[in-house]
C-alpha cells in the first residue's frame, strides 16, 4: 500500500505490467508443473531451526541485494509496484481456487489431486508466488526504511507488519502443534492425538477432569413435520420457548399453551413427572393445553427425552408438538493440570477463554454431542505455536500502519 493520492491526480496509463504479469504467470505455471511431476505432493516446510535459518537467509539476501544492487534494473523491477501488483493478483487467483473448491482429500490420481487444487495453500504455485511476493515486499520495505524518514513510518509499519505476519505465519506453520485431548470425568490423561492421523502423543503434562458442565438455553417447543424433517414456522416467527404461560400458534393447524414446566424432571409412578433428585439427570417436561379448531382443548404432559427417558410428543394430524432441547449456551471443564516438573494449576476451560500452561494454550473444544448435557467426556485442544509472538508483532504493526493510513487519509480528505 503506497501513500494515497487522489484519483483526480491520476491521469497516466498503466505501464510495465506486461512483463510483471508474465513473470507471475510463469511462477504459477512452474508451481503447477512441479505439482504435476510430483503427483501433487505439495511443499513440506522444514521445522525449527531450519525454517528460521531459511527465513534469516532470505531476509539477509533481500537486505544485501536490495542495498548493494539497488541500481540494477532487474532489482529495481523486482521491488517495484508492477511486480507487486501482479503477485497480489497471483495470490488472489490462487486463493480463489482455495475459496471455491473444497480443500478436502480428493481421489488420488485425479486432476484436482495431481495439481493439488484441493490443498492449494500448501502447494508449490502458492509457495512460489508467496516467496516472490515476500521478496518484492521486502525490497520496497527496505528502500523506504533506509534512509529512514518519519514520513515513511506508515508505509514501514504496514508493509513490515505484513511481511513479518506472512513470512512467520507460513514458515512457522510447520512448528504449529494442534492436539486433541479426550478427557473423562474423574480421570486423568496425558495423552493427546494428532488430527486427522489420530497418532497418539505423550504430553509433558497431564489433565484431570473434575467436572464437565453444559448450560443450555431454555428448551423450545416446535411443530415438527416428520415427512420433511422440518419444523413449521410459528405465527410470530419466534422460536417459542417452553415457559409457564407461553403460547404458540401455528396458523390453520393448532395452538398450544404451556400450563406447567419442569426443567429437570423424571417420570413419576403415576405417569406424571416429578422433580429429579439429581439435577442433571432429569429432562424438561411441559404440560400443554392443545387447541384444535372445532375440538375441545386437550391437556397433556410432553417431554424432550434423554438417557433412560422416552420422549413424549403430542400428535397433531401428520405433525407432532415436541420439546426441543435448548441450544448450548456455554460449556466448561473444571480441570487440574499437572506438569511433569511438578507444576500444578487448577483452571476452568471455556470456549473463548483458553488457559496457558507451560507454553501451551488449552482450549475447550467439544464434548460428546450425542449425550448432550449428560456428556461426561470433554474434548480439549492443546495448541503450541512458537511463532505466534512474531505473527502478532506483524498484526500490531499492520494495525499501527493502518491507523496512520486512516489519519493521513482523513487529513488529505479534508484538504481535498
Amino acid at each position, binding site marked *: 500500500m503506497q501513500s*494515497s493520492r487522489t484519483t483526480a491526480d491520476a491521469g497516466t496509463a498503466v505501464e510495465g505490467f506486461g512483463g510483471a504479469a508474465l513473470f507471475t504467470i510463469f511462477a504459477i505455471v512452474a508451481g503447477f508443473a512441479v505439482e504435476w511431476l510430483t503427483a501433487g505432493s505439495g511443499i513440506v516446510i522444514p521445522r525449527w531451526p531450519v525454517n528460521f535459518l531459511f527465513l534469516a537467509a532470505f531476509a539477509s539476501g533481500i537486505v544485501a541485494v536490495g542495498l548493494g544492487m539497488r541500481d540494477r534494473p532487474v532489482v529495481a523491477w523486482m521491488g517495484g509496484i508492477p511486480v507487486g501488483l501482479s503477485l497480489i493478483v497471483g495470490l488472489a487467483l490462487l486463493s*480463489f481456487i482455495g*475459496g*471455491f473448491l473444497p480443500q478436502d482429500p480428493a481421489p488420488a490420481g485425479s486432476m484436482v489431486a495431481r495439481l493439488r487444487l484441493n490443498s492449494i495453500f500448501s502447494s508449490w504455485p502458492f509457495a512460489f508466488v508467496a516467496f516472490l511476493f515476500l521478496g518484492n515486499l521486502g525490497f520496497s520495505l527496505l528502500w523506504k526504511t533506509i534512509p529512514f524518514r518519519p514520513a515513511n513510518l506508515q508505509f514501514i509499519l504496514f508493509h513490515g507488519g505484513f511481511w513479518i505476519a506472512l513470512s512467520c505465519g507460513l514458515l512457522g506453520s510447520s512448528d504449529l502443534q494442534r492436539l486433541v485431548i479426550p478427557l473423562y470425568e474423574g480421570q486423568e490423561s496425558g495423552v493427546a492425538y494428532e488430527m486427522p492421523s489420530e497418532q497418539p502423543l505423550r504430553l509433558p503434562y497431564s489433565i484431570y477432569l473434575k467436572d464437565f458442565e453444559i448450560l443450555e*438455553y431454555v428448551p423450545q417447543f416446535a411443530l415438527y413435520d416428520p415427512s420433511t424433517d422440518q419444523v413449521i414456522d410459528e405465527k410470530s*416467527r419466534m422460536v417459542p420457548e417452553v415457559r409457564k404461560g407461553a403460547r404458540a400458534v401455528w396458523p390453520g393447524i393448532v395452538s398450544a399453551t404451556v400450563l406447567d414446566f419442569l426443567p429437570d424432571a423424571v417420570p413419576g409412578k403415576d405417569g406424571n413427572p416429578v422433580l429429579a433428585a439429581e439435577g442433571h439427570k432429569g429432562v424438561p417436561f411441559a404440560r400443554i393445553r392443545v387447541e384444535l379448531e372445532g375440538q375441545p382443548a386437550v391437556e397433556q404432559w410432553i417431554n424432550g427425552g434423554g438417557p433412560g427417558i422416552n420422549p413424549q410428543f403430542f400428535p397433531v394430524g401428520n405433525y407432532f408438538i415436541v420439546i426441543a432441547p435448548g441450544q448450548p449456551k456455554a460449556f466448561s471443564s473444571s480441570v487440574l493440570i499437572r506438569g511433569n516438573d511438578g507444576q500444578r494449576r487448577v483452571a476452568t476451560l471455556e470456549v*473463548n477463554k483458553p488457559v496457558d500452561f507451560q507454553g501451551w494454550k488449552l482450549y475447550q473444544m467439544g464434548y460428546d454431542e450425542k449425550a448432550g448435557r449428560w456428556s461426561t467426556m470433554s474434548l480439549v485442544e492443546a495448541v503450541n505455536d512458537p511463532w505466534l509472538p512474531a505473527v502478532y508483532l506483524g498484526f500490531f504493526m499492520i494495525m499501527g500502519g493502518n491507523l496512520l493510513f486512516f489519519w493521513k487519509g482523513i487529513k488529505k480528505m479534508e484538504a481535498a
Partner: protein
Amino acid sequence: MTLVEFPAIAMAAVACWVLGSLLQIPAGRSKPVAVFSWTLFVGGSAVLVWFLVSYWIALERPPLRTLGETRLWYATLIPLVGFLVEYRWGIRWLKYYCIGLATLFLGINLLHPDVFQKALMPALQSVWFVPHVVVYLVAYVLLAASSVAGFHNLWLQYRNKSSKVSESMSHYLALLGFVLLTFGLVFGALWAKEAWGHYWTWDPKETWAFISWLAYLGYLHLVARKTRVTTLQWYLGLAFLVLLVCWFGVNYLPSAQNSVHTYSG
C-alpha cells in the same frame, strides 16, 4: 420489539426516504421544504436505528448473527454514508443509490424473514464479536458506496460531465473502507486464536476475506501508479462483487460445506 413489527418498520423507513427524495425536487426553491425533506431522510434512518436497538434488547444478544441481521445493519448504515457525502462534498446523487441499496436489502429481509432466535453459540460470545462484525459492516457499506460512485462516475464520464470531486469521493470512500477491512481482518484473526485455537485456517470465509482485502490492496497500488481514472472507476465498481461473494456468495460455493462461517438467513 420483534420481527412481527419489522414489515411496518421497513415500510415506514422506505416511505420516509421516498417522500424525502420526492421533496428534494421543490427543496431547491423553498428552505422549509428542504428542511422537511432532510427530516424525512434522517427520520427514515432513525426508525431503523430505533428498531435495531429495540431488537437488540429483545434478543438479549447483538443482532449480528444471521445474514438477515447483517442486512438490517447494512440497510441502516448505508443511507447515512450518502447523507454524510452530501454534507462533506455537496454531492447529491449518492444518497439515492444508497437509499436504493438499503431498500433492496430491506426487501430481501421481507421476502426471507429471519426467525426470532435468542441463542448465541458459545464461540460467538466474545468481546471480539461486535467490533469484528461492525467494523466489517461499516467497511462493506463504504465500499458499496465507492462501487456505485465508481459506476456513476463512468456514466458522468460517458456524458462528458466528469467531476474530479466525485472521483476523489469514490477514492476516499474506498480508502476508508480498506482501512476498516484491514481492522476487521486482523480483529477476526485475533478472535479466531482465542475461540478456535488458530488465527488463520483458510476457512472459505477467511479465504474470501483475504481475496477481498487483496482486491482493494490492488486498487491502492493502482492509484499509487497513477493509473487512468476510468480504469480506477471500473475497478472500484467491480471490486464490490468480490465482497458480495465474501458476504453472501461463499455460502453457495462448493468450498462452503466444511466452513465454520456458514450462517442461516
